[in-house]
């Protein structure tokens, strides 16, 4: 019985979640029979199940709703706003009761009577016309739910672990096999097994993924209810619901997202009257769009409302004593906008029930950053606001840096690292006063701690400079962290560490790299707390340093760049934002054909921009570059560090792949020109279709079939061998003939023809045919005939 009850609860909760969007969509379009049926079925199922589970309140509620919906189905009643409200009310009550049953709490002693009574109220009796009609979610049509089964998460975790073990066993086997004499049959079998294991791993990881639809499910209801409360008209559109993300991530993102949506409706979108006065359409647009971009999920929330009034933000900040008028005057627009993320500041002129209580964007940002995400604002005052949330695809794989300190290795999330310098860098000055160490970088003072000191390790004496990383936690100020060296940049699979380890407060998790030695992931916020830096972060210094930062920026605009060593030995710079990551690739994956170099990744070829070949080593470091569309690799000898370089080189000298020379830390370095890099990539295979098919008239001609047809296909033509039977020839088709017989047959069809001949010379002055190996003339003839 317990099991049945459990099943009933989880099924009901799941259906409720899915239906919330459906019912709003149905209200907007009451003629949508499919949605009405889905809602009806829900109540029907609940009624049926709770009958024998003996849940009389459920039964009564669902029965009442079912009756009304049944009347609507049979056309006896019209689904007006009052009815929909009543049905929603019943759904809410069922949700409350389900929750209570699930946790074993006593059922709330509220009266269900009025809910049921509300159902009976017809539109005529209810308040005249509802002032704000429902938002119109433009979902796709309701989809049939895919067949699913319910599995405990523990089982999936067990499967994941099993597969990880399999991968390790496979690696071990691969090592053993390499040591033995090669037996092709054995190797073949192993390859197959290896492939299966890899596929299995991918499939199992997918079980953790969930469609973002689930994240969007609660939005239409929020928008509808809030729109009604505030008397605003909103058209909601949701896109990209089929993007998948880690189910844990979905849960982490839902609160920030709802918060942003509420803000947007409350502060962003104006009332219909005001919108009319401003010359905007009365109905505001709210648009949510999700897409996957690399290993990030990007969710964009945009509205066409008022945007953020930065002048007002500044006023508020000054009034709250967080900012001096002086500092405010020096802030640029982006920094003013950034004030929205300060705790306790809000542009809402009055505290409403919805938002404006100062618990706002600061909490949203903290929550998003805690899961390794970022939040961006694109503000158009008076015209709208677009908020972009970027979160990692999963909580479990993050880009990280591997660093060494006190003879041990640690990982740190890439997102937490602002910059990396050597301690002999001229830009860095480390001062000490009363035991406190201060690292001054470009006139900005940071608290400086050595990782070894925080962890209670000895600082080993090592040759060469130590590395200073400027790291920041989700909240709080950036601080300087001294370590022995930063060794590597890789994608880390993070798993939770045991509570006894987490209790230290300085670790965020652990990872098991291929070498089988577990490694801990540092929590930068925890390190700052452990080193008692948190006090400093809380102080008003934040604003002062922000002011100083502006000063530092006023000179030249600086951008982060990667300093690396070319295979030919020179040291060069490349703008960091273009580099997706640094990879170690096996040298034999690189290849070239003609003057084009490429690297083989699984089953596709990615161009290598600097065309290197014949490496003298086993693995090659390569920078993976990406513009908005294409990717490419750039092979390097070594990645050195990340530095700040001026956005415009100190000496502009464009030649080849270079854009000029920069002076960085007393060294002059050539800067790669991203434009030239991507412009030099080979063209992608033509995707556009040439107009018209090419018909090869002589189906029997081997030359036409084996040599001509592939050439035409490569050029993007659709090729048909032999003339089609009957009159299926399109006037835009082009017929290619190799014999005069075929030429005559083609003439009959009445479309344009190109005649080819086998002899290099024309047979006479009347001969308009083209020599069949004259590629230029042939292509020109086809293009000409096609026009």
């Amino acid at each position, binding site marked *: 019985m317990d099991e049945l009850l459990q099943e009933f609860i989880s099924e009901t909760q799941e259906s409720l979640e899915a239906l919330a969007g459906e019912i709003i969509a149905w209200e907007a379009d009451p003629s949508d029979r499919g949605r009405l049926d889905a809602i009806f079925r829900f109540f029907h199922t609940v009624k049926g199940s709770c009958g024998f589970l003996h849940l009389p309140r459920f039964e009564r509620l669902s029965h009442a709703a079912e009756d009304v919906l049944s009347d609507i189905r049979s056309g006896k009643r019209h689904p007006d706003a009052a009815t929909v409200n009543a049905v929603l009310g019943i759904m809410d009550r069922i949700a409350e009761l389900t929750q209570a049953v699930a946790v074993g709490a006593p059922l709330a002693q509220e009266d269900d009577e009025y809910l049921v009574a509300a159902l009976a109220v017809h539109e005529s009796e209810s308040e005249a016309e509802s002032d704000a009609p429902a938002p119109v979610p433009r979902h796709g049509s309701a989809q049939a739910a895919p067949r699913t089964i319910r599995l405990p998460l523990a089982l999936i975790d067990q499967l994941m672990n099993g597969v990880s073990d399999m*991968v390790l066993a496979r690696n071990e086997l691969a090592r053993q096999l390499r040591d033995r004499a090669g037996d092709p049959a054995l190797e073949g079998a192993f390859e197959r097994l290896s492939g299966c294991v890899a596929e299995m791993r991918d499939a199992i990881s997918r079980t953790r993924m969930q469609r973002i639809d689930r994240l969007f499910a609660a939005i239409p209801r929020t928008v509808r209810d809030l729109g009604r409360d505030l008397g605003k008209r909103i058209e909601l559109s949701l896109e990209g619901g089929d993007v998948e993300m880690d189910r844990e991530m979905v849960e982490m993102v839902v609160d920030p997202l709802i918060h942003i949506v509420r803000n947007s409706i409350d502060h962003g979108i104006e009332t219909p009257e005001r919108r009319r006065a401003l010359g905007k359409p009365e109905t505001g647009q709210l648009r949510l769009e999700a897409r996957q971009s690399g290993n990030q999920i990007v969710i964009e929330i945009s509205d066409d409302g008022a945007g953020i009034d930065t002048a007002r933000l500044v006023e508020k900040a000054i009034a709250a004593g967080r900012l001096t008028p002086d500092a405010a005057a020096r802030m640029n627009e982006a920094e003013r906008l950034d004030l929205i993320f300060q705790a306790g500041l809000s542009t809402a002129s009055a505290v409403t029930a919805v938002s404006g209580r100062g618990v706002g964007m600061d909490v949203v940002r903290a929550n998003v950053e805690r899961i390794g995400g970022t939040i961006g604002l694109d503000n158009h005052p008076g015209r709208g606001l677009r908020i972009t949330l970027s979160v990692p695809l999963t909580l479990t794989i993050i880009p990280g840096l591997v660093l060494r300190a006190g003879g041990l290795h640690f990982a740190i999330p890439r997102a937490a690292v602002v910059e990396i310098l050597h301690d002999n860098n001229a830009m860095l000055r480390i001062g000490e006063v009363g035991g406190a160490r201060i690292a001054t970088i470009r006139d900005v003072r940071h608290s400086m701690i050595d990782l070894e000191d925080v962890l209670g390790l000895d600082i080993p004496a090592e040759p060469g400079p130590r590395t200073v990383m400027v790291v920041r936690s989700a909240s709080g100020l950036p601080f300087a962290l001294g370590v022995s060296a930063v060794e590597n940049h890789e994608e880390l699979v993070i798993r939770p560490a*045991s509570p*006894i380890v987490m209790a230290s407060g300085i670790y965020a998790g652990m990872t098991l790299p291929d070498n089988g030695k*577990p490694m801990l992931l540092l929590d930068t916020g925890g390190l700052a707390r452990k080193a008692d830096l948190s006090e400093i972060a809380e102080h008003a210094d934040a604003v002062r340093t922000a002011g100083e930062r502006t000063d530092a920026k006023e000179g030249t605009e600086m951008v982060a760049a990667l300093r690396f060593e070319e295979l030919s030995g020179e040291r060069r710079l490349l703008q960091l934002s273009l580099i997706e990551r640094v990879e170690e690739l096996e040298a034999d994956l690189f290849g070239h054909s003609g003057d084009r170099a490429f690297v083989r990744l699984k089953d596709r070829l990615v161009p290598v921009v600097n065309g290197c070949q014949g490496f003298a080593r086993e693995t090659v470091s390569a920078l993976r570059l990406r513009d908005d569309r294409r990717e490419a690799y750039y092979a390097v000898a070594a990645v050195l560090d990340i530095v700040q370089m001026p956005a415009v080189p100190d000496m502009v000298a464009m030649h080849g792949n270079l854009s000029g020379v920069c002076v960085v830390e007393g060294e002059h370095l050539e800067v790669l020109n991203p434009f030239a890099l991507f412009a030099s990539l080979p063209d992608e295979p033509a995707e556009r279709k040439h107009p018209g098919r090419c018909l090869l008239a002589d189906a029997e001609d081997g030359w036409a079939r084996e040599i001509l047809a592939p050439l035409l296909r490569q050029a993007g033509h659709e090729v048909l061998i032999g003339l089609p039977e009957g009159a299926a020839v399109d006037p835009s088709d082009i017929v290619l003939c190799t014999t005069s017989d075929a030429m005559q047959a083609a003439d009959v069809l009445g479309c344009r023809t190109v005649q080819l001949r086998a002899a290099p010379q024309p047979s006479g002055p009347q001969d308009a045919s083209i020599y069949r190996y004259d590629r230029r003339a042939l292509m020109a003839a086809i293009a000409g005939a096609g026009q």
Partner: protein
Amino acid sequence: MKQLYLFATLAGARVAIAAEEVEAVVRLTDIAPVPGLGRHVAGLSALRSRVLTVIDVAALIHGAATPAERRELAIIADIGGHSYGLMVDEVSDICWVPEGALPLRGRLDPVWMPYARAIVEHEAVPWLLVSPSGFLENGIADQAA
């Protein structure tokens, strides 16, 4: 009550652990230290794709960490969804004990007080009955203090 016990030597004392609380006994290989924690957390060790948090019980009892060369065997226990390895000196036997746990007699060394719950008679000598989770709970409490 008839019970299956694992008999081992732990921090120099004879102990019995109920067999259902023990997942396996393994030989420890590499232990990656976890700095910033108490001495009783010896570090992390990989067991195939699982990562064990290795607890140095002797350090918990006597306050002195076990030297690296004597870190050999560990009892694996799954506690609260995480895998732990408890370092033991020696494992002697796994046996059914017909009479099961007996009440503690005599005055126990105070260092053992938080961990020992009863005794088990095996081969005519008493063994202290301990539980892997007991070491952890008290271990974390210590750290907080």
